[in-house]
């Protein structure tokens, strides 16, 4: 009979801080020992609303953990009723969470040069990754206009490139423009960002024969594999046929070469 000694469940996390860091973007630090300690870069947590109308969890990636203190940081945008509710939480309040969920980035030993490519709200989970990777780290961050978290990356990146669509901060252009302009090369690429960006990152990896790992996103139901709502097409390496894989439990990190983007 399967052992059920360690059932995972929703738990209240204490809000340590919750501050606005850019237009509509907030940074919340939560205290929960077990979740903080167990988190791998690229994983996410479910946050639950108090409202009885907004039942579904909000999956939010973990930006940074400080396991010594049992805390974790998330960076989120206010996009609807749920995230609006979270933005109102004050230090001392609690929020129900479940996690860490999903599979994070593979951090293979022996990889010497890492390329880390983030776009917009895909940037936060790359911070903990950049912190933990060993080797040379080249970080490319793309924003629409306003930037955030750039200073935090400065501590861990060996090379840091910042780009905005309008050139208002850093260089003008997309992350692909930056990769090309500066001839950035490496042994492994890690990316998280809007689907449109990932769709360009994938062929870039293939063209330059660099293994890539990308973080996928979709409207989720449960966040732990039960509802089969958030799927993405993944190519079976043996049969060459695609099949739907669950982003929440099989991902959210997939190898770039496996993901099939719908055109």
């Amino acid at each position, binding site marked *: 009979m399967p052992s059920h000694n360690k059932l995972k469940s929703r738990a209240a996390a204490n809000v340590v801080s919750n501050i606005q860091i850019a237009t509509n973007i907030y940074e919340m630090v939560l205290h929960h020992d077990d979740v903080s300690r167990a988190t791998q870069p690229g994983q996410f947590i479910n946050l639950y609303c108090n409202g009885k109308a907004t039942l579904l969890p909000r999956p939010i990636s973990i930006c940074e953990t400080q396991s010594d203190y049992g805390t974790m940081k998330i960076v989120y945008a206010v996009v609807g009723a749920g995230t609006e509710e979270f933005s109102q939480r004050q230090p001392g309040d609690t929020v129900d969470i479940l996690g860490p969920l999903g599979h994070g980035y593979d951090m293979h030993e022996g990889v010497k040069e890492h390329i880390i490519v983030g776009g917009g709200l895909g940037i936060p989970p790359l911070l903990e990754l950049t912190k933990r990777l060993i080797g040379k780290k080249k970080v490319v961050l793309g924003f629409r206009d306003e930037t955030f978290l750039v200073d935090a990356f400065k501590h861990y990146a060996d090379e840091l490139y910042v780009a905005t669509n309008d050139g208002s901060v850093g260089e003008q252009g997309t992350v692909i423009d930056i990769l090309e302009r500066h001839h950035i090369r490496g042994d492994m690429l890690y990316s998280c960002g809007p689907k449109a960006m990932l769709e360009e990152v994938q062929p870039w990896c293939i063209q330059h024969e660099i293994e890539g790992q990308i973080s996928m996103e979709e409207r989720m*139901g449960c966040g732990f594999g039960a509802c089969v709502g958030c799927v993405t097409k993944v190519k079976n390496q043996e049969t060459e046929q695609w*099949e739907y894989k669950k982003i929440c439990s099989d991902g959210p990190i997939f190898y770039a070469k496996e993901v099939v983007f719908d055109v």
Partner: protein
Amino acid sequence: MCKSMEVNIAGITFKNPVMTASGTFQPRECGDYVDMNQLGAVVVKGIASEPWTGNATPRIAETYGGMLNSVGLQNPGVDVFLQEDLPFLEQCDTKIIVNIAGRMIQDYCEVAEKLQGTSIAMLELNISCPNIKEGGVAFGTDASMVEKVTREVKKYCDKPLIVKLSPNVTDITEMARAAVSGGADAISLINTLLGMVIDVHQRTPILSTKMGGLSGPAIKPIAVRMVYQVANAVEVPIIGMGGITTGEDAIEFILAGADAVAVGTAGLIHPTALTDVVQGIQYYMDRYNVKHIKELRGLVK
């Protein structure tokens, strides 16, 4: 005093009346969150004769007090189920019910036949999924088809057969009677209600399929009403579902005429909802000194 939550449905004894609702439970993933040994039964997500890919995304939309889904019965097919999932489920001290899906009558029969002689306790005939074009709800909204599919599948089924009804009909009792005429050993209801959500900012439906199945607390009064109507129309046991989140919700269905209940959407939101419902029923029985859960069945006239 020892109080019994044991229920009997079509000759099968369940330790308690709480089951998973098909489509909301993946044994291996959910096993990390729920102690399946504490459940009356695990109802496995719709299994077809071959793998189904399901619908394109987005498949999920939040609604007021509920959610819409348009998964479209993505499943690995009966062969993979038998090889990979069943041995895992067999390790648990609970009854296994398999929901079977198909596009044509023959598809259902094929799955039923392959499940003969296995450790599965019962089959649940899915003729009510609103998310597939052929079969599914097309069978479940036509009384003569309900009867015909049930009768055909029964020929290939060596286990009691539950027929799961769609609420997307004018008269649910007509469908229940048709299922019983076809030989259904039990009825489960309700499947999801066909719904739609539009993103007013993008001015498009949220779901890729435009419409999908509504579930969650928002649908509970409709489900209770339909269980009540069906319980007064047919004699076979009833498994009630639709928005059950607490023990009291489950009691409400039992009072309306259900023998057992299934918990679906609540388990997606609160992974421990299933076992919480079991405890909630126990608490209610203690509070009102109910010796046996079946005493409550259909008490509301």
